[in-house]
């Protein structure tokens, strides 16, 4: 046992929060009560562990404390009397509550497609990730009140609409897993876009958890690989507050351990038959970390990804690989045929292609358009730098 007691409480919070919340939803059937009771149990740990010492099995202590708290909470709300009757008498002491693992049920509950997409993200970060409402509000650039209302509305819908606390059966699992993975990838990208390492780290933690809980689903492993491969380049992606394109990144600043872990996961996903869009994206990300980049293979993978998704954004990314293999003119023809309107990367990609073709006026106009749409400082500085270099 190392570290101070407050450190142990913090560590235990990181490790056990989702497990305690999940056990409590399983116990009382109400996410709101479960979260409140779990939070109260961790607060009690912070007060009592420094005095009484850290219990032998912290998880069991937390779940038992939270269960008692939940019974108290429900007792105070008269409308829950029926639920309360179902809960009493309290569970026998002999039961080993530390064996309860309902985290998968909790993930599928928070990511249920009957909830609004932004509510799935917020609930997952709160109930599974343990982030506070204020932290989630900051990450998604909304006020704390707005986020609080969003979470409350979602928890109420879960209760009143009867959204189940259950792992979907085999027939339903593939599509429900799609929703879960989309939520996790969205959290990662939210952190990636503006360089928020904490959200990306949280997404990686969540996907690693899911990967462990669903060992028969190589798609989860593929998304895990994809996140690690991207994240390994984090430190090199920014220089003096300016975005650095992949080709110009200082490879010594890549996280080699994370890169190796990402590669190993990708190999494992492919070996187990994964060929889904996350696997293709991870394979593309992996190829782009090699030197020199095998652009022919990257393009081939983008062909497959485009065929699988039909996404205009994928077509845009594929155009970059076309520029490397077939020249900027061929790529520009593809880009100009895309209906992506005000998508900012359309214009930054056009600008780059026009620059390579020697069309300085066209490139300048495209950089201006991209700059008008840029949302982050590092991106803007990169575009300004490129435009100034014309």
């Amino acid at each position, binding site marked *: 046992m190392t570290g101070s007691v407050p450190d142990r409480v913090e560590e235990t919070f990181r490790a056990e929060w989702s497990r305690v919340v999940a056990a409590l939803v399983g116990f009382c059937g109400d996410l709101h009560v479960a979260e409140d009771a779990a939070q109260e149990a961790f607060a009690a740990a912070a007060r009592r562990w420094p005095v009484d010492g850290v219990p032998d099995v912290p998880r069991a202590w937390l779940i038992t404390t939270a269960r008692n708290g939940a019974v108290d909470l429900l007792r105070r709300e008269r409308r829950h009397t029926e639920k309360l009757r179902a809960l009493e008498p309290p569970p026998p002491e002999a039961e080993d509550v530390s064996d309860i693992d309902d985290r998968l049920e909790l993930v599928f509950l928070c990511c249920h497609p009957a909830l609004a997409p932004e509510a799935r993200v917020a609930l997952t970060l709160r109930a599974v990730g343990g982030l506070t409402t204020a932290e989630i509000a900051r990450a998604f650039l909304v006020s704390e009140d707005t986020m609080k209302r969003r979470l409350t509305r979602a928890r109420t819908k879960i209760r009143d609409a*009867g959204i*189940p606390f259950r792992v979907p059966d085999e027939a339903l699992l593939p599509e429900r897993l799609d929703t879960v993975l989309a939520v996790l990838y969205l959290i990662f990208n939210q952190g990636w876009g503006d360089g928020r390492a904490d959200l990306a780290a949280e997404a990686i933690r969540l996907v690693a958890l899911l990967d462990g809980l669903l060992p028969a689903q190589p798609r989860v492993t593929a998304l895990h690989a994809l996140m690690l491969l991207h994240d390994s380049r984090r430190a090199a992606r920014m220089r003096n507050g300016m975005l650095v394109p992949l080709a110009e990144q200082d490879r010594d600043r890549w996280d080699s351990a994370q890169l190796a872990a990402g590669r190993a996961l990708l190999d494992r996903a492919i070996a187990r038959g994964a060929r889904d869009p996350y696997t293709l994206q991870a394979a593309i990300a992996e190829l782009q970390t090699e030197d020199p980049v095998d652009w022919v293979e990257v393009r081939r993978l983008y062909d497959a990804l485009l065929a699988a998704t039909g996404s205009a954004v994928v077509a845009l990314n594929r155009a970059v690989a076309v520029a490397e293999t077939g020249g900027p003119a061929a790529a520009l023809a593809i880009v100009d045929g895309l209906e992506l309107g005000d998508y900012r990367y359309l214009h930054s990609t056009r600008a780059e292609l026009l620059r390579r073709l020697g069309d300085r006026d066209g490139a300048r106009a495209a950089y201006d358009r991209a700059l008008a749409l840029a949302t982050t400082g590092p991106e803007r500085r990169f575009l300004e730098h490129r435009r100034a270099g014309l």
Partner: protein
Amino acid sequence: MRYALLINELPDAYAGLDDAQLAAITAEYVAIRRDERVLSGERLRPASTATTLRAGGLLTDGPFADTKEVFGGFFLVEAPDLDSALELAARMPAVRLGGSVEIRPLVEL
């Protein structure tokens, strides 16, 4: 839990279907009606037979809202959870025919 499955259809959903096709759709609804989770179910006559009342005793010929879809019928079901109700909803021919099913939990008193 009890849910209402509210069936909305495109106004011309059945146009161009022959008798055999209509009979097959009816048979699907009858089969759903016989599911043990279904408490009751009713089909409404077409919106053209509707009369709408507003404040002041104002009567209008036709349904309240002039929308793309019209309310065509409902089932009341007793299902363990939303996924179970969704499974029933997914079997409604209206969904396949371009309409939708709204799943609403009932207030339990």
